[in-house]
């Protein structure tokens, strides 16, 4: 049975007002005056018929007036009908997870920010709370468990909602959902409702986050998904900047490379990029990206514009593009090292006669380092004297196996930040590499070498889009890398996610496998197994692998993101305390930890905003690191909330409801908190009754 209630029962005291017409009617029937009149006989013949009609009409008018007044009073008392199956006849624990991740700062075509819409929905939920409710307000970037607030403390709750702003951080959807669910389970209240107010960004709802929703639904909670983004928004973003300044084309000038992504289902317009050091414009370029494309864009940069700060030469560069839907990812900060050449120690085995020099020519064709690479030839024995100061990257090219000492020295080199590129070939011993050399360096197991069947060839295809190894090759995922024939390769198998297949054959056999500081080419970089060295893809592929291996060696820390503690590598531990300063008056102390052969300074407080963070000790500057937003938030593709129901078991399906619009949320809150309000129909009915009464009374006067 539906429950009938009044939301303003105080007005029911005015119900006796409905008796006013009746009182007036009765008072008007007081003792009437007597008027002598000679021709009453004429009246007498009229009276019974007329009086009956008049009395009937008067009764009708009385009834209409009384009913109209009654309806007015009832309308002011706001009657409501709550359906029998409404969840909240009693107080409820209401959990509100408000997504405040970076993507919520996105602005749609009408200029509305997602976070404003989300706050409005959350405010509606707060407004609908009742005195007995316990409200748990959580945000998706803070993992601490929320504390319940009393439902009648609306002012505080409203302020708490008002204070929430979109932060330049990714959402931690699974942990925050889990924390909220556990906090709600601790509530003694029998009804529990969990509202997720979010843009339902695809990247935020991982399997773990979906599993949390399922746990909440199967734990008896009613889960309501409140999407605030009407549709996916196209967005362009920076994803990285190569901290290495490289020589420009043909060795002239310098260039900086930035990785851009176009999260859109249509090609981008021309994207203009400006590079600044402070306020000074020091370079720039433009690019157009296809739908969904990631690409490295090389841009000329003025050598004279590169400043020197502190004792080490470093340049703070900010790359900007025109603002689009999400403004925070249209700026990228980078601390650039001094322009330098990558030193490559190429290890080949002497097998009688001069070995082919394809790789050396690809890296340094003019032999003067103008290409940004300088190549030193060496034998496996030369590895015994390998130090970090001698080379940045070691390239093992078709080496059968290494001696124990050489192998240990090479491992130490990599551990100290050196890069390693291993190329197989007809002489390399897959068993040695698979069993002895690779463990600890890259999770890759090898089998025997294989030739292409029936005299055919393998076709190379890009597998990992936007991988730095492919940055010189403008290819899409699955597209052929080259038309060159590759007739043999060593079959390999990636064993853990730490190693990534970057290039594979059309039949799915790995060709290029990458791990931090290490790249492995599973075929020959010479012309032993085909004609790859003669193809256009050869030079960018070799340079990509060497650059990838050298990147970790370059000293640049992995990209630092907002929300994480700023950290930087130190060659030596400073004697005094370290202080870190950054944007928004950020000041923090830092601790020093050992890392490999060096040290690492880690700030105690997380970075609140993107920008440059400077480490110093006792007035001496140690260095600067750049902190940027996490690129994961740049993809503004939304997930249809209904798709989240797919993971639910059938018996929990009815516990998950999508409230796609403000109207749907309002209706839901109306039905579950206040019931279906009836004041408007009552008011309309009263108005109609009054209109009928006036019409009847006017008709009577006119006829009279």
């Amino acid at each position: 049975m539906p429950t009938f209630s009044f939301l303003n029962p105080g007005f029911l005291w005015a119900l006796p007002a409905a008796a006013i017409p009746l009182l007036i009617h009765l008072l008007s029937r007081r003792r009437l005056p007597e008027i002598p009149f000679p021709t009453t006989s004429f009246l007498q013949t009229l009276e019974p018929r007329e009086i009956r009609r008049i009395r009937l009409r008067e009764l009708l008018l009385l009834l209409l007036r009384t009913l109209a007044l009654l309806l007015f009073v009832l309308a002011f008392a706001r009657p409501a009908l709550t359906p029998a199956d409404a969840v909240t006849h009693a107080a409820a624990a209401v959990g509100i997870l408000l997504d405040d991740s970076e993507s919520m700062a996105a602005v749609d075509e009408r200029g509305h920010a997602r976070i404003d819409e989300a706050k409005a929905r959350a405010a509606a939920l707060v407004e609908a709370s009742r005195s007995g409710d316990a409200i748990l307000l959580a945000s998706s970037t803070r993992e601490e468990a929320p504390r319940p607030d009393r439902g009648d403390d609306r002012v505080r709750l409203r302020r708490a909602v008002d204070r929430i702003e979109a932060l330049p951080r990714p959402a931690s959807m699974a942990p925050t959902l889990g924390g909220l669910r556990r906090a709600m389970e601790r509530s003694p209240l029998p009804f529990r409702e969990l509202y997720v107010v979010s843009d339902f960004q695809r990247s935020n709802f991982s399997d773990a986050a979906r599993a949390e929703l399922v746990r909440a639904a199967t734990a008896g909670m009613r889960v309501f998904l409140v999407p605030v983004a009407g549709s996916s928004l196209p967005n362009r973003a920076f994803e990285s900047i190569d901290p290495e300044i490289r020589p420009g084309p043909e060795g002239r000038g310098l260039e900086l490379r930035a990785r851009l992504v176009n999260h859109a289902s249509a090609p981008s317009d021309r994207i203009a990029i400006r590079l600044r050091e402070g306020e000074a414009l020091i370079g720039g370029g433009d690019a157009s990206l296809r739908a969904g494309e990631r690409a490295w864009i090389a841009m000329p940069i003025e050598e004279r514009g590169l400043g020197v700060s502190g004792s080490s030469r470093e340049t703070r560069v900010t790359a900007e593009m025109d603002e689009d839907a999400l403004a925070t990812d249209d700026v990228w900060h980078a601390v650039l090292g001094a322009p330098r050449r990558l030193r490559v120690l190429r290890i080949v085995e002497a097998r009688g006669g001069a070995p082919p020099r394809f790789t050396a020519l690809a890296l340094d064709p003019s032999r003067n380092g103008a290409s940004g690479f300088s190549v030193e030839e060496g034998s496996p024995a030369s590895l015994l004297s390998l130090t970090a100061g001698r080379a940045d990257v070691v390239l093992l090219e078709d080496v059968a196996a290494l001696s124990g000492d050489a192998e240990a020295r090479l491992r130490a080199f990599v551990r100290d930040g050196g890069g390693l590129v291993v190329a197989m070939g007809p002489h390399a011993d897959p068993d040695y590499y698979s069993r002895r050399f690779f463990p600890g360096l890259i999770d890759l197991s090898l089998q025997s070498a294989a030739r292409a069947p029936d005299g055919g060839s393998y076709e190379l295809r890009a597998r990992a889009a936007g991988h730095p190894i492919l940055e010189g090759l403008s290819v899409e995922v699955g597209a052929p890398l080259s038309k060159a024939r590759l007739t043999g390769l060593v079959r390999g198998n990636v064993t853990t996610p730490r190693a990534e297949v970057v290039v594979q054959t059309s039949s799915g056999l790995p060709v290029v496998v990458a791990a931090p500081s290490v790249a492995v080419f599973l075929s020959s970089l010479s012309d032993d197994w085909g004609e790859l060295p003669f193809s256009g893809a050869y030079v960018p592929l070799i340079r990509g692998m060497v650059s990838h291996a050298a990147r970790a060696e370059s000293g640049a820390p992995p990209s630092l993101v907002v929300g994480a503690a700023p950290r930087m590598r130190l060659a030596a531990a400073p004697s005094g305390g370290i202080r870190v300063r950054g944007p928004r008056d950020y000041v923090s102390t830092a601790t020093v930890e050992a890392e490999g052969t060096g040290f690492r300074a880690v700030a105690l407080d997380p970075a609140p905003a993107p920008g440059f963070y400077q480490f110093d000790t006792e007035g001496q500057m140690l260095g600067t690191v750049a902190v940027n937003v996490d690129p994961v938030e740049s993809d503004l593709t939304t997930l249809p909330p209904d798709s989240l129901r797919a993971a639910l078991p059938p018996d929990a399906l009815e516990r998950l409801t999508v409230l796609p619009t403000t109207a749907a949320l309002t209706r839901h809150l109306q039905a579950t908190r206040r019931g279906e309000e009836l004041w408007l129909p009552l008011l309309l009915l009263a108005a109609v009754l009054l209109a009928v009464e006036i019409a009847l009374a006017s008709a009577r006067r006119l006829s009279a």
Partner: protein
Amino acid sequence: MSDDRPRLLDPVFISKLARLDLQARLVVEGFLTGLHRSPYHGFSVEFAEHRQYMPGDPLRHLDWKVLAKSDRKYLKQYQEETNLRAHLLVDTSASMGYGTSGVTKLDYARQLAASLAYLILGQHDAVGLFGFAQGRGEQIPARSTMGHLRPLLLLLERLTAGGGTDFTASLHTLAERITRRGLVVILSDLLDEPEKIAQAIHHFRHRRHEVLVFHILDPQEVAFDFEREAVYVDVEGGPRVTTRPRELRDDYRARIQAWRARLRTICIEKRADYMALTTDVPYDRALLEYLAKRSRLL
């Protein structure tokens, strides 16, 4: 003088004058002043004066002798001399005491009767008076001397409203009592059954009397223009009706009009003259009606 004429004929104004003889004289003189050059200036056997011939005058009154002597056309006017005997019947039933505009129906009837008597005696006709109601009545026989006016007026002043409305019974009695044929002028509100009234008029007609009915009603009896709800009590002990006038007004008016039309029809059928009056109607209309009737009779 002519400016005062409407005032002198206004029932409310006249009713404020204390003496009935004065009232009657003022009314009739005011009325006659208005009739200057009117066709009601009578012709009689007794010469009164000459008047210049006007085209359209009947040639039978042309003074041929004067024409022969002086070649001028004059008409001879005569003092009228008739044997008309008029009987004024004034209803004094209780309902005649009703009045809402300062004049009761009886007042109106009394002044109208006095004026008629003055006018009739002025024309050397005989006039008598009957005040009648159920079970009682006073009578003065018809005489034509001006000295007869005083007792007539005294009786009129004595008349008071009262008693029931068995009006037709009184009429029948009077019809039996008036032996010489003459003009019977009834001044009444005729609150009785129309059929009975028809029989009474028929009775007069049967006795070869001419009948002129002045049907006198109060304006409120015609319009029923009351506003408030009240108990309306019949003045002659009839029914009591509780009503809101505005609810019944239209139907009531329609019925009153139908009733008056019915009475008019009855009078026409009985070859009597009927005139509906309300107490706010100036007396000249009634006097004119009388003169028209008299001229038809002569």
